[in-house]
């Protein structure tokens, strides 16, 4: 068969039609949704303006890229194949010994954010002084990264991975106004972090909460206050790798006899979830109005705090970028900021910018 044979060109045409058909069938294969950090693309809107501006082409491109039918299959196939080889499919996740995943940002981010250069010490002193002048208590609490506690699970690359992280840790521990937990966490025999998640687990979160509560009001947490139950947890690190993997975890909550706690929450117009706990009863309570400004670590110790505060409000730290959201909450007697180690430097300027803070 030579290129000039009539039968060869006919077969070439058939091959082109067959190839094109296979590609189009793949394109229109039924899609299954995947959780992603981006809004699902809108369906392409046919309009004159869309055509002339090129927006229609962009919509088609986004829709094809994201809604591609075989995409979820491709993602899971690669993830499973790579994990089967004992490695991580994505640079966002580092696999330590025994296949335990860690968030790479814990190690990488530390090297691009020399905390001393962010003048955190000076900034926190400035904030604390302003709060004191306004008659408020202020506490900045830092949650250790998973890698900095479970370092023995990182394998032979431990020292290289944690080189910058350790420098930042030493700097944070040298600031007296910061509450940290490295030493107490390292001394613990319990698993304080999820296996497949970048966060501490409920046990780690409650351990930290108890330390914080006792720091605000020594002796307020009594033995027997904490109650444990079991649940299944889906780890974010596996989601980052394109998979969902459940692990059984111990959920810790606080139940204080003689204390009645009312809980409510609302989503503000700008989408921030504000939670409130109001407690009353015979037992000792931390009095006044308390505001906790937090990141995602709060999800795993929030159930411990409520029964110890007379009036507790929590708001995600991102709300600070919308000062009106904070202002509408009113004034507080005590402000606690809880941040994970890898995010300590971000949003500090927002704290400074809030008028009433």
């Amino acid at each position, binding site marked *: 068969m030579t290129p000039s044979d009539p039968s060869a060109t006919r077969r070439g045409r058939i091959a082109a039609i067959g190839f094109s058909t296979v590609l189009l069938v793949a394109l229109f294969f039924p899609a299954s949704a995947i959780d*992603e950090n981006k809004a699902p693309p809108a369906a392409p809107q046919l309009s004159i303006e869309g055509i002339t501006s090129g927006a229609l082409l962009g919509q088609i491109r986004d829709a094809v890229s994201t809604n591609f039918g075989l995409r979820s299959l491709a993602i899971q196939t690669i993830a499973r194949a790579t994990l089967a080889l004992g490695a991580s499919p994505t640079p966002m996740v580092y696999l330590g010994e025994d296949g335990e995943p860690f968030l790479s940002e814990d190690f990488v981010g530390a090297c691009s954010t020399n905390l001393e250069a962010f003048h955190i010490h000076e900034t926190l002193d400035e904030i604390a002084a302003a709060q004191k002048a306004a008659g408020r208590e202020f506490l900045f609490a830092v949650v250790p990264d998973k890698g900095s506690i479970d370092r023995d699970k990182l394998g032979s690359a431990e020292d290289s991975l944690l080189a910058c992280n350790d420098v930042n840790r030493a700097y944070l521990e040298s600031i007296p106004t910061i509450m940290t937990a490295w030493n107490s966490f390292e001394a613990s025999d319990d698993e304080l972090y999820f296996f497949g998640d970048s966060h501490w687990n409920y046990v780690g979160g409650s351990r930290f909460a108890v330390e914080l509560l006792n720091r605000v009001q020594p002796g307020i947490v009594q033995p027997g206050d904490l109650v444990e139950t079991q649940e299944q947890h889906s780890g974010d690190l596996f989601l980052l790798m394109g998979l969902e993997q459940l692990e059984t975890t111990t959920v810790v909550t606080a139940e204080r006899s003689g204390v009645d706690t009312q809980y409510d929450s609302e989503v503000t117009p700008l989408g921030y979830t504000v939670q409130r706990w109001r407690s009353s009863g015979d037992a000792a309570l931390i009095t006044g109005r308390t505001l906790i400004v937090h*990141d995602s670590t709060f999800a795993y110790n929030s159930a411990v705090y409520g029964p110890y505060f007379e009036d507790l409000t929590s708001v995600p730290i991102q709300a600070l970028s919308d000062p009106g959201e904070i202002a509408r909450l009113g004034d507080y007697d005590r402000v606690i900021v809880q941040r994970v180690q890898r995010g300590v430097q971000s949003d500090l300027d927002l704290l400074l910018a809030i008028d009433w803070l």
Partner: protein
Amino acid sequence: MVFSSPVFLFLFLPVVLLGLALVRLRRFQAFWLLGLSALFYIWGAGQAVLILVAVTLAAYAAGWIPWQRLTVRWRRVLLAAVILVLLLPILFFKYLPPLAGAAGSDAFAAVAIPLGISFFTFHAVSYVIDVWRGTIVRERNLRDFSLYLFVFPHQIAGPIVRYAEIRDELHGFREASLPQFGYGFTRFTWGLAKKVIVADQVGRLAGEIFAINAGGTDLSLATAWLGAVLYAVQIYFDFSGYSDMAIGLAIMLGFHFPENFAQPYRSWSVTEFWRRWHMTLSRWFRDYVYFPLGGNRHGVLREYGALLTVFLLTSLWHGGTLNFLIWGGLHSAALIIERATGLRDSQRLLIVRRVLMLLFIIISWVPFRTATTDQLGRYWSNMVTGSLDGLAPIAITGLTPAVLIALAIAVISLIGPARSTGFGAVFGTRSSLELERFRFRLAIPLGIVLFVISSLVLLWSNFSPFLYFQF
């Protein structure tokens, strides 16, 4: 739009092929391909297509100038004027912003370079000069001429195709036979795999390492070298992969494009490197700049002057910053040293020279990747006097199996017969014109496997996991 995107692979390409296969009329073929090529460009660059239309019309009109009736002096003056007109967009979009920036003005900072303007302009200039020289007859049909410039496989990243090379195919009824379609499909998937499985994987980590340097942070010795090696792998596999895809697509559409790469990293001299790297660009500068300046026929000084001019223009073609000039300066200096010392034609110590050449290639790509001389100085300095701390965390976490596989493929590509491309060595043919030796029965299953794997990786790369800890 790029070839390695889901919208191209699974929507644009099948629509193009189906139209051509189902409606077998020459006029329809031409309009279908021209229309979709224009859409391809609009999809990537929007209204900048009007600039390309203007360049097309100017080059087409220049073909109608009665060059042979003009005096020598007027022919030259008019040719210079036409070339200047064709180069105006490239001068405005590519060189004015950095020049204005260097002068302290940010008036043009927001000006974006139209996609593929350099390649498009060089196609147009080559056509005008060839008509001027009388080596080709002007194209009378505006549709076919527009198709020559616009046809989407070479539109964004080459190869730079001479009008004479595809003139007959522009005028005739184009139809790929089964061997041609099989070759085109396999060549395309070979290039897609080079781009998606190798270049994109190493490129991500290279980008992160160079970003640290750009941020003003020093890199350890090992990290700096890793970044430079990764970038050298990325730029070759990316660019040559794109050329493979373009050549493969062209065959599927009934065109034959010239080869553009021939294992340049296996060179033992800089001279040889430029005979193997981006060959159609080297050919362009040789024929339209080096030879007209006298080449090597008028003494050593004139030869070196022509060489320096070529590399000055090559540097500027790639970009209007000082770093590109440094890159071009390194290569031109090495070329002149090779010519002056006789190393160019020497066959001694080839293995040692291949190793040294690899080092030169890796080091000389650094100015290509860094944006400023400060970044370049810091990077080169880190490659020599960087700390011995080992790899940075970003490199440890970034060396995923995908990156390691990509690096292994890059190493394997350095092994094998030096005279053949990797594709040629596997499939038995060096170009699309030697299909009788093409290993069809091996190519199709391997092509399908590569296509499936590349598609999986492509779809994976677009995955943006839900990061709820950043809520």
